[in-house]
C-alpha cells in the first residue's frame, strides 16, 4: 500500500475577522482603553465583569446605564501556574499564573494573568492590581498582567495614551486574528491520483460491479459508497461540457489575467467532470463540446497544479448527445 501524502495547512482569514461589538461590550472595551474596569449591575443587584450584552440567567438586555466602575484592585479566586510559557502561545515571555480575578465591587471574576516569578508567591485570596500597558487599544490585553497588591498602598497611575486624533472615540469593533494549523493526510485513492499526476498520468478509480470511472476519485463511488478499488488510466483529453468566462480580477492567487475561462471538462474514459482553466485560444472561441487536452507543467509534481490548464486539440467538437448527461 502507498504511504498517504501528508501536508500542513493553515486556515486563516487574511487580515483577521472584524467584530462589531455593540454598545455594551464597546463601552467595556472603551473603559479598558482608558485604563478603567467597568461592569454592569444586573436587575438582581449583582455586578457582572466583564459585562455581557444580555443577563446570562434571564436574558434581559444589559444597558450602558447600568455600568459601574470596579476595582482596580481585586482578589485571586483560583489560579494555575504556567511554568514554561511558549512563544506565540502565551502573552508573557516568563513564567506566570493564569488566574480568575474578582475585581473589588464585582460579583464575577475575569480570567487574566498574575505576573510573579514563582508559584510560591501565588495564593487563593491574594490581592492583586492591574498593570496597564501604555499602548492600549480597547481589549483585555490592555492590562499586561496583574501584580500583587497590599491594601493601603497607593494605586499605581495608569500611563497616559500617546496622543491620537480619535483617542476620545468609543471602541466599536475589534479585529481578531485566529489561525488553525492542520496536518492533512490524503486518502489512499487521492494519493494514487496525485502520484499519477507526478508521472503525467490521470488515474481514475471504479468500484467492483460498476462501469463508472471517477478521475480523482475520493475513494468511493458516490452513488453506492462502494470503494473505487480498481485503478483505471484515464485519458488527458476530453470535452468541455459547460463553462463561464470570468471577468472579475483577483478571485484567486492562481487566476490568470481576466478574461479567462473556467470550464467543466469530461475526460475521455471517465464519468465525472473536472473544473479547469481553458487557455490556448481566445475566450470567445470556447464553446460547449470543444475538445481539449491537458497542458502539463514542465516539472511534474504530485499536485493538481501539474495540469496548468486545458487547451483545444483542434479536433471536431463532440456532439451534444455525447455529453448532455453530464450537465
Amino acid at each position: 500500500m502507498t504511504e498517504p501524502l501528508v501536508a500542513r495547512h493553515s486556515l486563516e482569514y487574511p487580515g483577521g475577522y472584524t467584530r462589531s461589538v455593540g454598545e455594551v461590550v464597546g463601552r467595556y472595551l472603551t473603559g479598558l482603553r482608558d485604563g478603567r474596569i467597568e461592569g454592569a449591575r444586573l436587575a438582581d443587584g449583582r455586578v457582572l465583569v466583564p459585562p455581557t450584552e444580555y443577563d446570562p440567567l434571564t436574558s434581559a438586555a444589559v444597558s450602558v446605564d447600568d455600568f459601574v466602575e470596579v476595582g482596580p484592585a481585586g482578589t485571586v479566586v483560583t489560579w494555575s501556574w504556567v511554568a514554561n510559557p511558549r512563544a506565540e502561545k502565551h502573552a508573557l515571555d516568563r513564567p506566570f499564573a493564569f488566574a480568575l480575578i474578582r475585581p473589588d465591587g464585582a460579583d464575577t471574576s475575569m480570567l487574566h494573568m498574575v505576573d510573579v516569578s514563582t508559584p510560591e508567591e501565588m495564593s487563593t485570596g491574594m490581592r492583586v492590581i492591574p498593570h496597564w500597558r501604555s499602548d492600549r487599544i480597547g481589549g483585555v490585553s490592555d492590562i499586561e498582567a496583574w501584580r500583587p497588591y497590599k491594601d493601603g498602598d497607593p494605586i499605581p497611575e495608569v500611563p497616559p495614551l500617546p496622543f491620537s486624533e480619535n483617542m476620545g472615540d468609543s471602541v466599536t469593533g475589534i479585529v481578531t486574528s485566529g489561525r488553525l494549523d492542520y496536518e492533512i493526510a490524503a486518502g489512499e485513492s487521492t494519493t494514487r491520483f496525485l502520484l499519477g499526476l507526478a508521472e503525467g498520468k490521470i488515474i481514475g478509480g471504479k468500484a467492483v460491479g460498476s462501469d463508472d470511472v471517477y478521475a480523482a476519485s475520493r475513494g468511493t463511488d458516490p452513488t453506492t459508497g462502494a470503494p473505487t478499488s480498481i485503478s483505471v488510466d484515464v485519458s488527458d483529453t476530453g470535452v468541455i461540457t459547460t463553462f463561464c468566462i470570468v471577468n472579475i480580477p483577483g478571485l484567486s492567487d492562481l487566476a490568470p489575467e481576466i478574461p479567462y475561462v473556467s470550464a467543466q471538462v469530461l475526460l475521455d474514459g471517465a464519468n465525472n467532470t473536472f473544473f479547469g482553466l481553458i487557455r490556448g485560444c481566445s475566450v470567445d472561441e470556447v464553446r460547449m463540446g470543444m475538445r481539449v487536452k491537458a497542458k502539463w507543467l514542465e516539472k511534474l509534481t504530485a499536485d493538481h497544479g501539474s495540469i496548468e490548464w486545458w487547451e483545444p486539440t483542434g479536433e471536431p467538437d463532440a456532439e451534444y448527445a455525447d455529453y448532455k448527461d453530464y450537465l
Partner: protein
Amino acid sequence: MSKNAVAVVGVGQTHHRSSRKDVSMAGLVREAAVEALEDAGMTWSDIDAVVVGKAPDMFEGVAMPELYLADALGAAGKPMLRVHTAGSVGGSTAIVAAKLVQAGVHERVLTVAYEKQSESNATWGLSVPMPFSPPLVAGAGGYFAPMIRAYMTRSGAPRESGHLVAVKDRLNAVRNPRAHLHMPEITLKMVEESWLLWDPLRYLDTCPSSDGAMAMVLGSEKVAAAAPNPVAWVHGMAMRSEPTMFARRDQINPQAGKDCAADVYRQAGISDPRRDLDCAEVYVPFSWYEPMWLENLGFCAEGDGWKLTAEGATAFDGDIPWNPSGGVLSSNPIGASGMIRFGEVAQQVRGAAGGHQVELKTGKALGHAYGGGSQFFAMWVVGAKKPE
C-alpha cells in the same frame, strides 16, 4: 404514528443591510428574536427550546455560534441546537425546530438564522484552498455560471430570461421595507448593461451580500389557539440531499430537489403547485435560478421555466408570484436567507406581509431553500387553515 400540528405563531426579522456595524452578532439575532416573541405575545421564559442556524463557520470565524448566542437567545436552562446545511440552513433550521413541536417534544420553540457577512468575506469563505483538492479559481459565481449556460443550451431560454427575474425581484423589494436593495429605478436595460462578471452572469443577476437575521416562534395546536395574532399552519416539510458530484448527475435539475418537492406536496395535498399555491418564496441567488427551480419544483414541464417568467406568471400580479418580498436577489444574509423564505410565506398566509402581501385564494404558500453545489434542499408548505 400520529403527528402533532405545528403553527408559526410569531415572525421577526431585521432590516437587512450591507453592514450592521452598530450591533454585534448577538445584537443582530436579538432584534429578530425579540420581534418574533412580541408577535407571538411571549417572553423569553415562555420558550422551551432554541434552534439556531447559520452558514459555514469560516464566514465570520465563529465556530460555536450556539454557545456564543445562548444568552442573547434566552437559552439558559433550555435545550439549544445548531443546524448546519450550507446555504439551505435557514430552511433546515426551521424544519428541525418544527419537528420538535410535531414530535410532541416541546410546545414552543424559538428558531433563528443569521449571517453577518460584513465581518469577513464570503467569497473567501467559500473557496479556501485546501491541500490535495483542486483549486477553485473562479469564485462562487464561477461554480454556478456554467450550470446556467448549460440550462440556456438545454432549454433554449433566451439571454434575457434571467434579466427579467433580476428586474422583477428588485421591483418587488421596493414593496418590502426590510429588503436590503431598494432599486425602484431598475430596468431591463440596466441589467443587460451591468458588468458581465461570470459570462453569462451579470452583476445585477446576482444577490447582494447582507447582514441580517430571521426568527420564528413555532407552537403546538394549544399554543396556536392562544396566539394573539393569526398563525400559519405547517402543511408539509421535507429535506433532501445528494452528493456534489457523481456520474450523470443532473446539476441543473437535481433529483434531490425534485424528490423534496414531491414529498412536501404529497404531505400538503398539492397536485399542481401553480394552481394550488398562492405564492412561493424560493431561494434564487442568481436570477437564472428562477426558471431553473420553476422546473425543478414542478411549476411547469422541464424546459418551460423561462416561459413562465417571460409571460409574467411569477410577477407580483401574476397567477403564481415568486419572491414577492424581493427574494435572495434583494437581501442575502446567507445563513438567514432560507429562513427568510420560510418566514415570508408564513407572513403571506397570515395576511401579515404588508406592502408585498399577495391575494390569498388557496391560502397556501411554498418556502424553499437550497445550498452547497445545489445538493441540499429544504422546503415547507404553510397554510392559513389547520391541516385536516
